[in-house]
């Protein structure tokens, strides 16, 4: 029995599994992008003009 025989790479995914994995990946990418936008504009809204005030 070869080492690493049961790693994920050796598993043959069914079509349904491949399709759902792809859909989950896309959804996760969109959510992460949305989260970045949310934080970016949220930080600007929260800090306002203070965003430029950085002690030198």
């Amino acid at each position: 029995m070869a080492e690493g025989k049961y790693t994920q790479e050796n598993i043959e995914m069914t079509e349904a599994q491949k399709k759902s994995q792809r859909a989950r990946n896309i959804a996760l990418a969109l959510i992460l992008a949305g989260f970045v936008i949310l934080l970016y504009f949220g930080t600007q809204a929260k800090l306002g003009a203070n965003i430029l005030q950085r002690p030198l």
Partner: protein
Amino acid sequence: MTVESIREEDTAKLMSTAMPGDYYKLMKPRVMYLVIFTAFVGMLMAPGSIDPWLGFIAILCISIGAGASGALNMWYDSDIDRIMKRTEKRPIPVGQVQESEALTFGLLLSAFSVVTLGLLVNWLSAGLLAFTIFFYAVIYTMWLKRSTPQNIVIGGAAGAFPPVIGWAAMTGTITIESIVLFAIIFLWTPPHFWALALFRLKDYEVAEVPMMPNVQGEASTRLQTFVYSIAVGITGVLPAVIGFASLVYGAFALGLGAWFIWLGYKVWKKGSAENGYAHEKKLFGFSIIYLFAIFAALGTEAIIMRLVG
């Protein structure tokens, strides 16, 4: 069949076939809509203002926090969800989502929603959101639900927190006004769920969930439903009595409350399995309309006040 082939087969089975929509179902969307609505009304009624983007973030975090507690509830309750008619089609019982996925999903959403709310809005609302998730997932789901017929009475607090969180997001405070909004939902929960439990008696019995009708009997539940209906009717009017809603709202709430009490009375006096639990079903249906109408009225009035004042 060799050990190798069994292992490969098992590993392949472990690979999820869940679609994004299945995760969305884990968040109990209908409960989430109610949470969004009541939290939004809490924000509208609170004094002061908030940057619209931060207001949107607050609502989003509160609704995702609610969704997280829904996912944690579905993870823990998957055993009884499988045997109850009302819940047998949820993502875990039908095999769309695995239990460990639901747990991870719930914990991640909880953490992200609380931290984001804290960093971008304020830490009081974030703390309240964290407490609400803990209360629903741990106190209600893991402890009360399967151990006492008072489960939904105490557990109802989790559903009552959203307007308080919304208020806290706007003002950074908890005041008598937000406590009244809490009380309306808190007292509304028992008659709403007991009406459901009366006509879904067998479902809860099979799952061995100690709902009031199964433990103390139908007669006692009906009486308690009526008593709580009176409490709901009175509490619904309190915003006008205290003075943070108008007399027009007061009259509206009085009418709705009177009808709630009347339906509760009918459940107490005439509710029966013989007529197919018609009165219980009527109260259950009206209870949903009641809560929606009360908060819609409060929200509409708050919008008008903001536009005029």
